[in-house]
């Protein structure tokens, strides 16, 4: 990437900085938020806006390097958009199931984060 044109580097710079900051904030959320169901929301930041920014930046620079429109980056975006809801819903269901099972085994404890 010796000398890329300005129309590619300027938006790519902004997008990379923003995407990096958002993904880092999401991972910090994974560390700092108090309980599991809140922590679910942290990585979804990295999944959505982190991936989106980086993939658009990658499209811009790859198009500038090869001189034609790079169109295979949206495949990763498509795949992440299709797969991350599946993972998140299954994890959510597993967590609620395990909470319920644990509260049923040890009834002396106060039920936490179950609503039924």
């Amino acid at each position, binding site marked *: 990437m010796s000398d*890329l044109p300005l129309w590619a580097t300027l938006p790519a*710079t902004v997008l990379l900085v923003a995407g990096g900051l958002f993904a880092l904030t999401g991972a910090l959320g994974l560390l700092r938020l108090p309980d599991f169901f809140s922590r679910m929301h942290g990585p979804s930041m990295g999944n959505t806006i982190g991936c989106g920014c980086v993939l658009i930046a990658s499209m811009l620079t790859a198009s500038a390097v090869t001189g034609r429109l790079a169109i*295979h980056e949206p495949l990763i975006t498509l*795949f992440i958009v299709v797969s991350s809801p*599946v993972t998140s819903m299954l994890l959510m269901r597993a967590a609620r199931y395990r909470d319920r099972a644990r509260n049923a085994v040890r009834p002396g404890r106060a039920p936490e984060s179950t609503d039924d």
Partner: protein
Amino acid sequence: MTTIFHFAVDFAQMCFALAMVCATIRLITGPSAQDRVLAFDSLYISGMLTLLMLGIRSGSTAYFDMALLIALFGFVGTMALAKFLLRGEVIEP
């Protein structure tokens, strides 16, 4: 402008590496099993983004294929782990 762009690539790569560190801490300390699975999910997404950074830096498309493979296998791995937490087995008869 190119130097600023180089700096932005370095910065983003550092951010993703720090995100991987955060996810690893949660993976090790995480009080419950679902926390660890969630941390693993976050870890492989950050790793994939780091690979894309390397791809931008070098201008080759080989890293893109690696990123796609990491996304595919990470998804399958997280699915299997979550299914195991839910049902106690991965492939049901």
